[in-house]
Structures are given as structure tokens and as C-alpha cells.
């Protein structure tokens, strides 16, 4: 049932991706954006059902690699639709939807073992810590998408290269503003995620060894990068192109941390246990 629902979800997301790309590349028709948004919302409902089925086996959606990829996809769509309420910009969807499709397809391709839940996860700290961390990552991914859009638009304006496709992107100021807000939100969530993780280790004596987990080092580096970016903006006006570049770099670090530590690495955060 889960596999079937997830496959249907992937198909619906794919339809949405086609519409979002059509909006950007072919013609910015409001109807196309509406179709894409509705498809995304329908996909999200199906995706939620798929995840709920999986959870009914007693497995939180962030234990195995396959489930986590799917959960990230779900969280990205949710985050995107929330941002759309404030900033209705379909072109952000054009950049995000292919990534969502990729995540769900990867999840479909990977095995999904049903293993008994490790007792160390049977605590309230686990869902709180993971939710905050994933939500933070979602904000950073969205910020990176907006940052990438900024870089494309900025390059086109600097080089005076005129293209109807690039002209469909929002203005530089708006992209910069959204990028900043997303990073502020992401940074707060990441900070809370790190604090809850730290408290969890502090309160559970069995987890002393987790302090040396590579994920913690990587995450602290990511946190520093975003801290520099936010402070730089407030103090010396680190904005525009450099901020966009840093938000894309931050995304790269998030991906490296996730792939390198969770998927391929060893340790407390690894899926390979």
C-alpha cells in the first residue's frame, strides 16, 4: 500500500513539475501556475497518506534512508506551499519541484526494511529534535532555491542578456528579501534543533558517545556559515549576490552533511546501523 501510494505521489509531483517548468520556460500563464499548485497539494495529500501508512507499522518516518528521503520531500512541499501563502511566486516551484521528484524517486528505489524501533529513539526528544532539524533544512533549501534564482537574474541584469524566461523570475529585491527571511527562520529552527539534540545527549547518559558524532561537527560548521551570513547582513550589508552565493553554499553543506553522514557515514546519525 505504501509503495503504491508513494508511486502515485511521485506521478502527481511529476505532473506538477511539468506544469511549473512550463510556467517558467514556455509562458507564465496563471492557469498553469494554478494547475501546478493544485497538483502539488494533491500530491502532498497522497504523500501524507503514504507516510501515515508507513508510520502505522510503528516506524517514525526518519529512521531508514528511504523513509527519510521521502519525508524530506514531503516537508519541502509543505514548506513551499506555506511560503506560497505569503509570497505567491510560482517560479520558486519551478526550481523546487524537480528536487522533490528526485527525492521521492530515490525513496522509491531504496529498500524499506521493517525493523523493530531502536529503544533509544523511544523518547519525546527524538521527534522534537528531528522535526526542528528537518524544518530548518527545508527553510535552507528554499532559501538556496531563491538564492539560485537571484544569481540567475542578477547575472542576466549585469551582462544585459535579455531572455523572456529569466524575465519571469521575481525582482532582485524581492528574492533577496525572501532569501533573508527564509534564512532567519531556518537559522532559528536549526539553533533550536541543535539545542534539543544537545539536551537529549546531556539528559540520557547512554548517549555520551554521540558527542563525537561527525554530524554534530558538520552541523556546527553550517550553523557558523549562516550565523556569519545573518550577522554580515545586519552589520555590513552582506546582501544581494554574496548572500545568495552563501545561501547556495549553505545548501551544499546541508546536502554534504546529509549524504556524507546520514547516508554514507558511520555514527549516531547514520542510517546504516
Amino acid at each position: 500500500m505504501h509503495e503504491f501510494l508513494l508511486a502515485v505521489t511521485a506521478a502527481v509531483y511529476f505532473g506538477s513539475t511539468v506544469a511549473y517548468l512550463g510556467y517558467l520556460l514556455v509562458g507564465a500563464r496563471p492557469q498553469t501556475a494554478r494547475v501546478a499548485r493544485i497538483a502539488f497539494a494533491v500530491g502532498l495529500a497522497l504523500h501524507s497518506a503514504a507516510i501515515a501508512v508507513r508510520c502505522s507499522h510503528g516506524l517514525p518516518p526518519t529512521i531508514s534512508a528511504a523513509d527519510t528521503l521521502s519525508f524530506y520531500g514531503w516537508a519541502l512541499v509543505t514548506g513551499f506551499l506555506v511560503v506560497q501563502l505569503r509570497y505567491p511566486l510560482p517560479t520558486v516551484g519551478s526550481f523546487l519541484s524537480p528536487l522533490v521528484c528526485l527525492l521521492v524517486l530515490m525513496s522509491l528505489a531504496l529498500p524499506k526494511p521493517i525493523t523493530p524501533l531502536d529503544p533509544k529513539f523511544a523518547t519525546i526528544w527524538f521527534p522534537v529534535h528531528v522535526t526542528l532539524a528537518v524544518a530548518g533544512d527545508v527553510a535552507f533549501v528554499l532559501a538556496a532555491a531563491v538564492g539560485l534564482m537571484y544569481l540567475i537574474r542578477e547575472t542576466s541584469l549585469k551582462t544585459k542578456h535579455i531572455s523572456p524566461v529569466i524575465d519571469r523570475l521575481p525582482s532582485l529585491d524581492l528574492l533577496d528579501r525572501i532569501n533573508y527571511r527564509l534564512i532567519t527562520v531556518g537559522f532559528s529552527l536549526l539553533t533550536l534543533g541543535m539545542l534539543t539534540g544537545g539536551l537529549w545527549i546531556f539528559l540520557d547518559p547512554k548517549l555520551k558517545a554521540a558527542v563525537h558524532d561527525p554530524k554534530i561537527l558538520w552541523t556546527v560548521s553550517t550553523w557558523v556559515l549562516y550565523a556569519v551570513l545573518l550577522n554580515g547582513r545586519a552589520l555590513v550589508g552582506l546582501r544581494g549576490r554574496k548572500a545568495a552565493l552563501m545561501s547556495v553554499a549553505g545548501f551544499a553543506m546541508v546536502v554534504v552533511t546529509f549524504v556524507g553522514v546520514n547516508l554514507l557515514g558511520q555514527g549516531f546519525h547514520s542510517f546504516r546501523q
Partner: protein
Amino acid sequence: MEHVGLPEWATPLVVGVSHHTSSVELREKLAFDAGDLPRALGRLTSQPGMREAMILSTCNRVELLAVGETPEAAASGLSGFLAEERGITSEDLVRHAFRFAGPNAARHVFRVAASLDSMVVGEPQILGQVKSAYRAAAESHAVGPVLNRLCHRAFRVAKRVRTETQIGDHAVSVGFAAVELARKIFDSLDGKVVLVLGAGEMAELATRNLAAAGASKILIANRTHLRAIRMAEEFHGTAVPFDELPTRLADADIVVCSTGASSYVVTQPMVQAALKRRKRRSMFFIDISVPRNVDPEVNHLDNSYLYDVDDLEQVVDANWQTRRVEAARAEQILDQEIERFLDWLHELDANPVIREIQDRWEGIRQSELDRHRGWLARLSEDDRRGVAELTRSLMGKLLHAPLSQLKACRANGSLGYVDAARVLFDLDDEGRSRKPRPRPVAAAPLEDTEST
């Protein structure tokens, strides 16, 4: 003629001159003053054989639209009118004027209203001018069903073209290109500060456009401070001493530069300092001066964008390209709408046939009732009414199928069925002419002119 198949009495005709066909001298000679229109329209419609007329007179075109008893009558009425009114001979007309009839006339009117025939393709003013020409004609009772419908269709076409294509979306003048670029950087120009250096005509134009787009604060600096003050008054701005340029630069989001200086007035270090002071919020430099007044290196600074005259021209050229592509798309919309309009014209012609059939059958019914009045008189009042009702409903049922077929066929434009109905229902007693007779306008349905 090209309007084969159209009812002759409903064939629109356009005769006129435009910037494409004639010199401004001839257009001036032909032009009609708005105040003079009621009189001119009255005169035009009183030409022999003229049913409907309308006059569109703008600085780029003078066009007369007419519908006559026949297209020939309309044409001779128009040339007679122009000869009387403006002393234009028919040779002059042949040489300088265009003339469209039937579907081509409809296409021309649609193209004009949709701004596809304009000097600046896609400019929006022409639609308003067509609308007021129509209003003037309607107020003078010069338009009838055909021009009514033609104009309302034209307004609809113009709206479709505007919303379904991007024909008017991009700036095709340097002044508007500056606004368009500023919007790509700043999103909205509301509350943005514009600093104007120098007082060239182009700079003034660009500033006017930026202010109209929402830029609220205008700072003006000129080497001759008095000129700055004068210009500041005009734009409700503030005059700034030219020497203060390096310090005031940081206040400006947009800098319009058009001085006569032979070297760079705005240098890279100056902009660098300004950006630092304004915490690297974006700056947009529009350099309309030749030789250039803003160091091209300014464009290489982060969050600073510089466009010179050539860059702006390039933007305008690209936008022209877009307009041309969009104009081709608009022609497709026109094709659809012309089909619809022609369908309607055919419909106009079939309606009298239907009415004639109904009249004829009603006549037969009445005469039959009359023939049987002897025994009918013996029935009670109620029964007599029942019999009358029976014959009426019988007639309605029998006619229902052929009449609805006729209505459906004319929607496809197959006038042949209308013709066949005339023969089958024996409508043309005299000589069985297969040619549809012209019907008086009063017999034509005065349909709702609102676009459907």
C-alpha cells in the same frame, strides 16, 4: 468581390488613410474634429443607399466605416461624401486610400482596435480612440446592427489580444525601458529615491516615467544650480548642489545621468563608498549621456547595475522583437473572431427567411380556419379556441425541425440551406429567384450588441 456569400446589405466597408498609406498632409486634410462629427455623420448617413456609418479620426489615421444597401452603394456614398466634404477626388482616393470590404473590413477594424496597425504596435491609446469614435456615431444614430456588432467584437478582440498575448507588456521606448529595468531590480518603485544628474531631454523623460511609476523622491543636481532648482520645481523634487554629489549618492536608489561632461561624473570609488554607506542596498545607474558620464566599472561592483544608452536601446530592440512575435499570435485570435463575426452576419440574413416561412404558414392556417368557419361556428366558444390552438401547435411542431435545422446551418455559414428553404417553402413567388433579396434593416434582428 471578396465578400462572396455575405449578404450584400450587411457588408461592412472601410475606406481611409493611415500613416501606412499617406502623408501627414493628406491625413490633416481629411481629419474630422470631434466637435464636427455629429454633423459629418449626419451628412454621411444621408448619402443615397447608406445605412450605417462611423468616422474614426486620429492623428495617425482617418477612416470611414460604412454599410450600404449594397457595397457599391456604400462605396459611392463614401466617395461622394469625401468629394463634397473634403474635395478629394476618386483618383486621389485610389492612389492614397485603402479600401476593405466584408471580411477584410472586419479584419482591418479588429487590427486597428487591437493596436496591430498602429505606428507603435501594441500602444494602448488607439482602443480608446476607436471607442470614442463609436460612441460619437452611436449618439448620432449613425450606426445600426452591423457596425454595432462589428465594434463590440472589435473591443472584445482588443481585450483578448491584450490579455492573451504580451503585445503591450514590454517597453519600446528608452524612458519606459528604464522603468522596466528598475522594476527588475527593485520590485516596486514606491518610495524609491531618484537622483537626476544634468538636465538632458532624455533624462527628463526617464525621470518623468520613473516618477509616474511610483518613485517618490526626486533629487536633482546640475552644474548650473539654478537649472536644478527650476527642474526640481517641475518634478516636486529637491535641488542638490552638484558638489555634494559624492555624499548624496548614497541616498539614491536610481541615478539618472545626462550631463554634458566629457569625463566620468560618477566614478567607481564614489559608488563603492556610496554602496558601503547604504549597506549595499542595490543601486541602478541609467547613463543616457554621450560621452558616458558613469564609469563602466561601476557595473562590476556587487549590487550596482549600470545601463548606458546602447544597453537601453538593446533592451528596446529585444522588446520590439517580442512585440512582433506577439503580434503574429494576435493575428490568430483575429482569425477566430472574424469567423464568429461572419457567422453572425450570415445569421442576420437567415432570420428573415425563418420569419417569412412562419408568416406564410400562419397565412395558410388562417385561411384554412376561415374556410371551415361554417361548421366551426356551431362549436362552443371553448371548442373553437381548442381547434385554433390545435392548428397552432400542429404548425409549430411541423415547423420545428426545419426551422431549427435552418438556424443550425446558418451558424456554419451555409447560406445554401437558406436558399434551399426559399425554394422548398415557395417563398419567392415571382420568378423563383435564388438570390436572397436584400431585407430592410428593420426586419433584421436588433440583437443585443453586448459581446457574447
